[in-house]
């Protein structure tokens, strides 16, 4: 562990970074000051954020913010690049099982307008391409594909369709019409098995009819063939099993990190860094091995802090379970500034956090994991998991955040709210957080503050 944990703004990080360098900070090849991402990449939003002060957090941010450069370098080195869209965690496991193949997540471009405070003009350009603000901000990936200023054009583009976000499907179809060929694979909507039907257990305490698991496995087999053809090597069971074991290393690290951060008497790591860390589960930020190192560093830092009883948020903070990722990262800081802390999360990819079964044939295991995606099943299933995790994390309140234009299920927030209220009776609010939420900060702040007042009042019996 290094200095006592605290949050720093970008100016403070500049000074802190100088001191760390002076003290002999060792960094990977993508290391450097956070400031350079503002200067070089125009990630202006960083100037409004508060960051954890540990070198482990610095490494996490630098890893996240250098992904495009890493992809361009990989292309220059002759690696094959696969864009994996929508499945949130399954196809990357397959792609990284093959040597010389890197997967990335073009959907991630939805964060670019926020990080660049819309200076990238991606959202406006998407509108000019026929996909307006009534669609999810993922539409930012359309011009990013066209102008090549962000990520390199992938050698293979794979996208799941069927029981996935309809906004996303529309945007991906528009992308294909623009000339970017897509390898589609079908995801059925997860349903409860009929009484007489054979069924399989899935990660996350779920079940699904065997026929659905078989369908997804067959689809993933097709995906595997396409990946094998790209790599010039068959994606056999041994390869895939090894890939699953490494992916599970990432998932185990994240599980350990979540467990210690969310169950500690006070938060040893800010909500913002936890959100970024959890996101690594989906796509490994284009470098699976480095993901393991980055998460290992964070976990060691957090373990040391907890051992030393050093926390970043007071023990009095209201314990909040957060649902869905935010478009503007500033919201995660705001939560803590107003007296909250995260004690659990469902950022819409909980299936990418669950361990992939290692006792099953690899494709079968991946099919079951893919089918456990919260977005392909009923919201009530998702709400049931939220309730379980709220109870485990002693949550006092739930925040369901929404992104304007994005509606994976139009009634998602209401369903979650009703089920949480009914089963554990804690207050739930829905917040809509746009890509740049500055103008809405007073309103967002009022709602969060009211939520915390309500939760605190409930402490007094």
């Amino acid at each position: 562990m290094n200095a006592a944990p605290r949050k720093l703004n970008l100016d403070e990080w500049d000074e802190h970074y100088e001191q760390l360098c002076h003290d002999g900070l060792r960094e990977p090849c993508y290391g450097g000051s956070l400031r350079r991402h503002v200067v070089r990449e125009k990630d202006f939003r960083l100037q409004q954020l508060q960051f954890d002060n540990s070198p482990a957090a610095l490494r996490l941010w630098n890893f996240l913010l250098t992904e495009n450069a890493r992809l361009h370098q990989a292309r220059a080195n002759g690696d094959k690049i696969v864009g994996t869209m929508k499945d949130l965690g399954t196809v990357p496991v397959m792609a990284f099982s093959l040597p010389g193949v890197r997967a990335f997540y073009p959907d991630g471009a939805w964060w670019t307008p926020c990080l660049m405070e819309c200076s990238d003009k991606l959202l406006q350009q998407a509108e000019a391409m026929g996909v307006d603000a009534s669609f999810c901000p993922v539409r930012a990936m359309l011009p990013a594909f066209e102008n090549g200023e962000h990520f390199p054009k992938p050698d293979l583009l794979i996208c799941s369709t069927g029981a996935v976000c309809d906004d996303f499907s529309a945007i991906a179809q528009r992308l294909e019409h623009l000339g970017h060929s897509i390898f589609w694979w079908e995801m059925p909507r997860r349903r409860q098995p009929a009484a007489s039907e054979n069924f399989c257990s899935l990660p996350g305490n779920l079940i699904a009819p065997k026929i659905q698991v078989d369908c997804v496995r067959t689809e993933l087999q097709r995906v595997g063939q396409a990946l094998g053809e790209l790599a010039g090597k068959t994606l056999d069971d041994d390869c895939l099993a090894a890939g699953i074991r490494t992916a599970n290393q990432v998932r185990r690290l994240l599980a350990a990190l979540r467990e210690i951060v969310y169950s500690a008497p006070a938060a040893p790591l800010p909500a913002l860094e936890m959100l970024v860390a959890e996101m690594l589960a989906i796509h490994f930020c284009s470098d699976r091995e480095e993901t393991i190192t980055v998460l290992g560093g964070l976990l060691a830092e957090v373990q040391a802090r907890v051992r030393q009883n050093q926390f970043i948020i007071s023990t009095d903070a209201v314990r909040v379970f957060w649902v869905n990722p935010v478009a503007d990262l500033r919201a995660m800081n705001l939560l803590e500034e107003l007296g909250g802390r995260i004690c659990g999360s469902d950022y819409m990819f909980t299936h990418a956090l669950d361990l992939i079964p290692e006792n099953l044939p690899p494709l079968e295991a991946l099919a079951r994991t893919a089918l456990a995606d919260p977005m392909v099943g009923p919201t009530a299933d998702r709400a049931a998991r939220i309730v379980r995790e709220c109870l485990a994390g002693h949550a006092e309140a739930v925040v369901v955040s929404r992104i304007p234009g994005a509606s994976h299920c139009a009634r998602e927030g209401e369903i979650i709210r009703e089920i949480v209220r009914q089963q554990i009776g804690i207050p739930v609010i829905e917040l809509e957080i746009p890509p740049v939420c500055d103008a809405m900060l007073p309103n967002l702040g009022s709602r969060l503050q009211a939520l915390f007042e309500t939760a605190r009042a409930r402490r007094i019996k």
Partner: protein
Amino acid sequence: MIYAGIDAGSRSIKAVLFDTGSSQILASGLADQGVEQERLATELFKKLLKEAGLERSQVSGMVATGYGRNAIRFADTTITEITCHARGVHRLAPDARTVIEIGGQDSKVISLEDGGRVRDFAMNDRCAAGTGRFLEMVATRLDMNWEKLSELASQSTKPAIISNMCVVFAETEIIGLLASGKPLPDVVAGVQNSIATRVSALAGRFVLPPIYFTGGVALQTGMARALEEVLACPVRVSPQPQFTGALGAAVLASERGKGKP
């Protein structure tokens, strides 16, 4: 002991002086909101002190609430309007289980537990169609004051259907309705129904009776009836609806004075 509550809302500032000994409101007042919120609030507060024959030093504590609460730096602390309206309504109507507050720029539905504690809440501050702003727009368009608008609504026999979900487009629709000869009272009542429908959507399924209606819009004749129709449940207008936020703030100030958090 005397406590003060100031509710710096989006359209007006409300203030209350509350005596815990007699459990009575000693003075209450209202001023239009403006750019210099703190000055306006100070003037209002001084006016109330004068009316009640009190000195500033006799006020044991003060809480500010409302949209502009953080600008009221002479208050001891700030508490959100959700908590304050809930406490204010509970003080005046202890049986309340649901509070609907429609203000100038937002609307809220607050669910209360026994003892007046907030159980949960929902809030709309992104769409003017469910707020008093809609009625203000109509009043401006028809060049009449708030009271006259209220009076007109009560004369309606067949409220107009306002289809648009957006106040800006609804304005065009209202002009069209008036041009087609729709009686004015029916148009105004139609606007009230439209607001009530938006608020009922916000309330969802967690509305439990008794429901109390508060906020400045509660003074509009016909609004409570419009809410009753869409919620299919009796809706009572809270006593002194425009002051429940400020009263709640004063009550909470007194509880803080007694050491309650």
